[in-house]
């Protein structure tokens, strides 16, 4: 299935991209699985998305936990903890 992935702030800079459309292999069906899938690209991906890194996620513009399901056409965003206000 195809999904849209977005990256913000320090994550966007580390990865050198604001996002992409990506075709996911079967079995990548949660936020955590997608994060692992991207981290396995190695290089900056592994460093920025490693499990020990404090990375938050949103699915279709709502904060999402690692176990949240993802479906075809979803917009999934990864970003560091927020610092507004």
């Amino acid at each position: 299935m195809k999904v849209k992935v977005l990256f913000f702030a320090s994550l966007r800079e580390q990865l050198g991209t604001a996002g992409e459309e990506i075709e996911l292999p079967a079995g990548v069906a949660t936020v955590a699985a997608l994060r692992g899938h991207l981290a396995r690209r190695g290089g900056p991906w592994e460093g920025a998305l490693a499990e020990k890194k404090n990375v938050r996620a949103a699915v279709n513009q709502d904060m999402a936990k690692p176990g949240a399901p993802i479906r075809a056409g979803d917009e999934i965003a990864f970003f560091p903890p927020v610092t507004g206000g």
Partner: protein
Amino acid sequence: MKISVQREDFDLSLETRNLSKSEGVGAVASFVGIVRDVRMTLEHYPGMTENALRKIAEDAAARWKVMDCTVIHRHGELAPHDQIVLVAVASAHRADAFAACEFIMDYLKTQAPFWKKEHRADGAAWVEAKASDDAAAGRWEPPARKAS
């Protein structure tokens, strides 16, 4: 309810005057956040940021008697002494207005997708999230949800 994420500055007295027009209003409590001492760039997530601010304001309105409220958050380049954020809440009495205003600010700090990058003499760096902000939002738990 007015929610705005904008580059432009805002006018506190204009915003509070607009809120004081609500029927039966007896109090408007407001908070303005100011850039302390360093130039910064504020990034956000267009669409999600507005939705998150609206959800926080609606949660506040479900917990306290809120007649109207305004949340304005700026993005882009900001300099020391610039205004960053405004939260203003209109209610019949001060207790609801104060509490709702503080609640909205506390949740905005931990739930609204904004990121600050500071530009100092020795380079630029993203601001790290503070544990004290999570603690401030945590004291309001459990968050109330409007019965649907």
